[in-house]
C-alpha cells in the first residue's frame, strides 16, 4: 500500500505511542489533590512545558484542546466575543477564503448568528496572503475584532509570512490567529517570534494521536471560552485533561520539531521527484500552489510534503478511485460529509477555474514516505489519468 495522504493524518511515532500507552494504564485526574492526581498533573505539565519549548511559547500559553477544529473554533469565536464584548464597534472578522473549514465555518457562523461582518482577504494565485492584502482589508482596524490567516494551506501548501502579517495586524490593534496545523513539523514555527496572538496546532498531523491538540494563546489575549466547567486551562478550556493524549501529543511534537530540518529536506526531495515524474508522464498536468523552490521570509514558500496537481479533463474523484484500486491513497481536497466531491474552495479562492479545481489531486508526504511510494505513483499515473478522462466524457 502506498500512503500519500499524510496531510490528512500521518502514522503515530513509536515514541508517542509508547508514552501514551504507558499513561493510559495509570489512574489519576490532573485536577485531583491526592498522589495519583499529582502524578497525572506532573505528566501533563511536563508535556505542556515540552510542547511550549518546541514551539517557542511559554508553558502558560499552551491550552490543550481536542484538536485542530476545536482550536480554530475557540480562537476565532473566543477572540471575536472577547473583543466585541470589550468594544461593541468591533464586529468585523477578517479572514482568508482559503482557510480550512474549521475557520471558514466558524467565521460564517458568527456572521449568521452573532452579528459579525466578514471581510474576505484577497488571495494570490499561489494561495498566499500578503501583508498588503491584510492591510487593505483591515483599514484602520477600529471596527475589526479578529483576523485569521493560516500558516500553511492544507490543500495547495502555500505558506504565508505570519510575522509580517502579525505586524500589520498589530499596527492597527487587531489580534491575529493562525491555523498552523499543517505547518508544525514541516516549517520552522516559533510562536513568540511570529508575534501572532493565537495559534492552532493538532497532534495527528505530526505523529501524535487524533483528538489532541493545543491552542497557543498569548497571555495578554482575551478569549471567551466555548466550554465552561471546571476551569482548567486558564479557564478558557474546561474539561478533565486527557493526560495520555497530551503526553502523546507532546512527545510527537517535540520529535517532529527536533527532526524537522532533516525530514523536510528528505520529503521535499521525494515530492519534487514525484512532481517531475508526473509532469513527464502527463505533460498537460498542472502544479497548483507556489513553485517548488518558492521562498517566503527566508524559508520554504510551500509545504515540503505537499504536491497538488490538476489533470485537465479528468475528475479528481475518479482519479482517486482508480488510484485507490491500485493501492495508492491520496486525496482530492475538500469533501462534504456525504463524500460528494466539490471543487476545491482553495483553488477557487486562488482564482482557478472550476474545471481545474475539480480535476485536482493532493499527494502529501510524511515521515514514513519512501522512494517506493513515488515509484508506485509514477508507474500507474499515465494510464489512470487516461482512463479517468475517458470515463469523464461519458457523463459530461
Amino acid at each position, binding site marked *: 500500500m502506498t500512503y500519500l495522504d499524510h496531510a490528512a493524518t500521518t502514522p503515530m511515532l513509536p515514541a508517542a505511542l509508547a508514552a501514551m500507552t504507558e499513561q493510559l494504564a495509570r489512574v489519576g485526574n490532573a485536577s485531583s489533590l491526592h498522589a495519583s492526581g499529582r502524578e497525572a498533573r506532573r505528566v501533563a505539565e511536563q508535556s505542556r512545558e515540552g510542547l511550549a519549548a518546541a514551539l517557542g511559547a511559554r508553558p502558560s500559553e499552551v491550552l490543550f484542546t481536542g484538536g485542530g477544529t476545536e482550536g480554530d473554533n475557540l480562537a476565532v469565536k473566543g477572540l471575536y466575543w472577547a473583543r466585541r464584548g470589550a468594544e461593541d464597534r468591533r464586529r468585523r472578522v477578517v479572514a482568508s477564503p482559503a482557510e480550512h473549514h474549521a475557520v471558514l465555518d466558524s467565521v460564517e457562523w458568527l456572521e449568521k448568528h452573532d452579528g459579525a461582518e466578514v471581510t474576505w482577504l484577497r488571495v494570490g494565485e499561489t494561495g498566499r496572503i500578503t501583508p498588503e492584502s491584510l492591510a487593505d482589508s483591515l483599514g484602520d482596524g477600529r471596527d475589526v475584532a479578529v483576523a485569521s490567516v493560516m500558516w500553511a494551506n492544507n490543500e495547495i501548501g502555500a505558506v504565508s509570512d505570519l510575522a509580517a502579517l502579525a505586524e500589520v495586524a498589530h499596527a492597527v490593534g487587531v489580534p491575529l490567529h493562525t491555523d498552523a496545523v499543517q505547518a508544525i513539523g514541516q516549517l520552522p514555527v516559533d510562536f513568540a517570534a511570529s508575534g501572532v496572538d493565537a495559534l492552532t496546532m493538532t497532534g495527528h498531523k505530526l505523529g501524535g494521536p487524533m483528538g489532541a491538540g493545543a491552542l497557543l494563546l498569548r497571555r495578554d489575549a482575551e478569549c471567551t471560552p466555548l466550554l465552561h466547567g471546571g476551569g482548567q486551562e486558564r479557564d478558557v478550556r474546561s474539561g478533565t485533561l486527557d493526560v495520555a493524549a497530551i503526553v502523546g501529543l507532546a512527545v510527537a511534537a517535540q520529535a517532529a520539531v527536533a527532526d524537522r530540518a532533516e525530514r523536510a529536506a528528505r520529503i521535499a526531495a521525494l515530492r519534487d521527484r514525484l512532481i517531475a515524474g508526473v509532469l513527464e508522464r502527463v505533460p498537460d498536468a498542472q502544479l497548483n500552489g507556489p513553485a517548488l523552490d518558492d521562498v517566503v521570509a527566508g524559508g520554504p514558500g510551500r509545504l515540503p510534503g505537499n504536491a497538488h496537481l490538476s489533470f485537465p479533463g479528468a475528475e479528481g*474523484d*475518479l482519479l*482517486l*478511485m*482508480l488510484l*485507490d*484500486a491500485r493501492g495508492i491513497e491520496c486525496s482530492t481536497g475538500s469533501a462534504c*460529509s*456525504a*463524500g*460528494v*466531491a466539490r471543487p476545491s474552495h482553495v483553488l477557487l479562492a486562488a482564482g482557478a477555474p472550476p474545471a481545474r479545481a475539480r480535476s485536482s489531486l493532493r499527494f502529501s508526504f510524511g515521515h514514513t514516505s519512501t522512494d517506493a511510494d513515488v515509484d508506485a505513483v509514477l508507474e500507474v499515473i499515465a494510464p489512470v489519468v487516461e*482512463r*479517468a478522462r*475517458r*470515463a469523464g*466524457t*461519458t*457523463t459530461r
Partner: protein
Amino acid sequence: MAVRVIAAMSGGVDSAVAAALAVEEGHEVTGVHLALSPDRQTLRSGARGCCSVEDAHDARRVADELGIPFYVWDLAERFREDVVEDFVAEYAAGRTPNPCLRCNERIKFAAVLDRARALGFDAVVTGHHARLADGELRRSVDAAKDQSYVLGVLTAGQLAGALFPLGSMTKDRVRAIAAERGFAVATKPDSHDICFISDGDTRGWLTRRLGEQPGPVVDVATGETVGTHAGAYGFTVGQRRGLGVSTGDQRPRYVLGIEPVTRTVTVGTAEQAAVDEVLTGRPTWTGPEPELPFTAQVQLRAHGAAVACRVTGSADGGLRIALAEPQRGVAPGQSAVLYAPDVERGDQVLGQGPVLRAGERSAAVVR
C-alpha cells in the same frame, strides 16, 4: 464467472443485499452511492426522499462491513436534466411520465453504466426486483415487488451490463438475508413515491414548478364545461378522484384526455374511458427485435395488470397494440411494456413503446 462490478447502493435494504450477494458470488465489487439531489437533506424523512446524507451513510456502513471500496458519485446535474426536467416537461405537455423508468434508462444503465465501463468495470449491480439470466429479463418471483416494468426500457446492450441478484427471492427473504448479515438497514422502511418530491405532493410540486394554469374540465359527451381546474398537469388519463366536476347523472367521471395548449381536461364515463387499442412511439427491445405481428401481454403502467394483446406495426415506426379487454387509464407518457407470458420462469420482458394515444378502434368503442 467473477467480474468487476459497480454496486449502486442507495442506502436501502435491497441494494445492500444485492451488493452482498455480488460479493459472495465472488465478483470484485465497488460500491457507489449516487447523489442525485442538488439540495441534500441531512436526515431521511420516513419512506420519502432520496440520497440524503443519512442514506449515503447507511450505504457506506454496508460497504464497509462488506469490505468493499465505496464512493459517492455526484450525478445531480445529469439527474436534473434527464429525469427531473423531463418529468416537468412531460406533465407540461399533458403526459404522465414515469421518472423511475427514465432514471433506469438514462442514469443507472446509461450514465452510471457508461462511466463504470470506461473505468474498467463489466457491469452495474442493483437491488431491482427482476430476474435477469442469459440476457432475458423477467418478472420477479415476488409479484408485489416486481420492478420489471420500470426496467422494460433497457436494451440488450444495457442488460448485458446489468446484474439483478434479487429477482428470484421475495422481499421478506431479502430482509432476512440483511438481518442474517447484521446490516442495520434490514428493517429500514421501503421507499415509496417519487424520490425528488420529498413530501409526496406531486401536484403541489408541479404547481411550484409550472405555476397555476387554470382551465376547463369538459364532458366528452356534451361538450359542456362541467368544472375548472388549477392546472392540467395535476391530472392523469384514467384518473377518477379529485376531478371536482358536477354532472347531472351522478355517474363517476374519468379523465379521458389532456389538451395542454387550451388546458382542457376532457372527462367521460367508465365506458368512454375504456380503450382497446394503444398506439406507441418507436419501441425499444430487450433482445432481438421480434417479428411483427405477434401476440403478448402488455402492462400499461407501474403496478397495472397485464392484459393479452396483439402487436402490429404502425405507419410511423411505432406499435399498434390491440387489447383483448378494454382498459382504463392508458395515459400518454407511460410505457406499454410487452411480456411473453411464462408461468415457470417468469413472464419475459420483450420491450416497450411509449404510449402516444388510444388507437382508432378505441374511438369506435367510445362512441
